[in-house]
């Protein structure tokens, strides 16, 4: 992800107009009628990167511990989680979905979502 530092704590991504977010939203809607609220590829990458350590099911590197009283314990080290993600659909409506893999998250952010269905 290409980013440039700014005065705030959060990076600004190319094309963003941080100084007036409502205008950005409006311009975004005018510029791309078919998907006014679709996250940019950079945003999707950022979301997936944030989610990846939590939702991965990979056991690579996880340590198995034998318990004193018998049995085996594996510390997931923050993995094997599920995550709730949100975005707006083409009409601007909030759509929320739970994902438990980066593939599912990427699919949610890239495709046109709806609340439990498709409009077209």
């Amino acid at each position, binding site marked *: 992800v290409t980013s440039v530092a700014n005065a705030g704590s*959060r990076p600004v*991504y190319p094309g*963003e107009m941080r100084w007036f*977010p*409502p205008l*950005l*939203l409006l311009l975004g809607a005018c510029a791309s*009628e*078919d998907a006014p609220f*679709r996250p940019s590829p950079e*945003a*999707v990458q*950022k*979301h997936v990167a*944030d*989610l990846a350590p*939590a*939702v*991965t*099911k*990979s*056991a690579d590197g996880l340590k198995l*511990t034998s*318990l004193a*009283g*018998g*049995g*085996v*314990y*594996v*510390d*997931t080290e*923050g993995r*094997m989680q*599920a*995550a*709730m*993600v*949100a*975005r*707006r*659909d083409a009409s601007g*409506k*909030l*759509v*929320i*979905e*739970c994902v438990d*893999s980066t*593939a*599912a998250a990427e*699919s*949610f*952010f890239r495709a046109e979502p709806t*609340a*439990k*269905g*498709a*409009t*077209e």
Partner: protein
Amino acid sequence: VTRAAWVLAALLVPTIAAADVEVIIVNGDAAGVGMNDPTAVAPVGGNPGTTLGQQRFNALQRAADLWGQTLDSEVPIRIRATWAARSCDATSAVLASCGSNGFLRDFGGGIGMLENTWYARALADRLAGADLDPAGDADMVATFNINIGKDDCLENAHWYYGFDHEEGDSGVDVVGTAMHEFGHGLGFLSTVDAATGSLLSGFPDAYARFLFDIQTNKAWTAMSNAERMASAIRPRRVVFTGQNAVAAAQTTLVTPIPRLRVTAPGSVDGNYEVVEGTLSTTVAASGVKTANLQVANDNLFVPRTGDMTAAEAANASATDGCGTNKASMTGKIAIVDRGLCSFSYKVQNAQDSGAIAVIVVNNVAGSPSVMVPATFTPPFTTTIPAVMVSQADGTALKNAAASGTVSVVLELEPGVTAGADALHRPFVNTPSVLAPGSSVSHWDPTAIPNLLMEPNATGDETDSVDMTLPAFRDIGWYGDGDLDGLPDPSDNCPLAANPEQFDGDADGDGDACDNCPVVPNGDQANADGDSVGDACDNDDDNDTIADSGDNCPTDANPDQADGDGDGVGDACELDDDEDGIPDADDNCPETANPTQEDSDGDGDGDACDEDSDGDKIPDATDNCPTMANVDQDDRDDDGLGDPCDSKNDSGGCAIAPSGSSSSGLLWLMLLSIGALLGRRR
């Protein structure tokens, strides 16, 4: 505000009925932020907190309490929660995540523990009756995005901290979100790596042990990694087999689902899977539709505001259903392609042309999608049912319809309900790779009603844990549901404490829960739903007529009506096609035809008669299927046989159907007129 202050506030939160297990939210936030944020706020939706921090904590504790009152464990469950920055931009965000801090297997757990099986920590503790965590850390971890609603973080949205699930269009329900995510941390989650199909360290988890692929007839535990990967993206082919979940599905998932049955031609006949949307009415509400298919033939599509761009409209096809239809579809079932415009337009256009139902052909591989209404104007007035078929099925049907008549019945699939298979096993979510969505650790989104552990937040969340509770019972929660010391799988009354296990009639059901303890009745059949099983009930249907003299002993019919006098009451006459005509008297017992039309009088109703007029020409190829015309004459060559053609166009004259008593006279008149005109010249 001090930590002690918000702890005190939390104690003032209205409590839920005594919990069976204490679920503790461990505040992992630093001073002054997250659940320690001192910003003053007004109480909302039953959450009495007066600071932002208090409300955040209270909302999470509310979700924890809701789970706590439904689960049983002697070991408290601790969830370490934090409110922190997560990835977001102006229109999308990561809201929250949650999971178990670890998994355990073969820990010497008590009742209900399966060997060689991973259990989420909280569940393992419950089975062992002790905290097994070697490090003494929390059982689960949860993180919530603290920036939602701020600039560049899902702007114009906000977390809703009320307990009443009244978050509105711009709110995100914290309690509902936390209930769902905590559900995963408690064990509603498979640890199978979707990317490789591999099991965690070679062992299945308690959840995956109940996953079964109905297409390959294989349990997930018996599959290779490659087989699991393939199964995970096979929509509505993977079910959860736990007996408690299956039993619950029979009373929870009761909405019938439609199917498309093609009756002719033979090249495409059979049953087709369809998925119903919420565009207009349902097949259940509108009744069985029997008709021929009509492929859309559109006029030029004119894009409407909010729908498509002009550039996209240029890609319109004649079969996408987006433009108005060139010809009438009266009495037909329209078949249109998915794409270009919203489903609402397709259905509206077909309805305006007279169609009685619409079949939308998916434009991507995989299973059909659930169609929902367009969210923009104009208002639609659709009243006909609409379903989607897969791309492969739809293409076959369109091709057949293009070369002849395709007769179909849009009806309800007997015995099958939304969200479960024919054996009432609930589907888990296995979206095709092309569809957005999460994986098997959710119920399938076709379930009706909406369920807590579906992947989509539907805005109608409640405090209920619905189908998840019986599934939890299956994976080990409530290993001894009635706490009588016997594990549920070997308890002859798992929901009624009976440590002595008395079973007087030796039918496998303990006396404490047997609806007929003196007569063996393993099926516990109880037609009238009273407290007495049929085997002991001399009036099984409670209609005041004793079974011995009841002409319909399991269907209430106090009037004993028996229209055909066959000794079997009308109320229990078989009527497979539900057209009101008992099968014994129905000339088409499997195809709804309440009018019983039988053009050729051969005893087979037209609706199921492949040669309705008895002229030896099958309907599929007969140019006049309802009137005998062995010669297949078609004077104007318009494809419609003369007997059916009230207006032959070739001569511009009305031609009486051949075989009609007036045909000879008509021809004589025409010849006379011709001769007269000839003379005048």
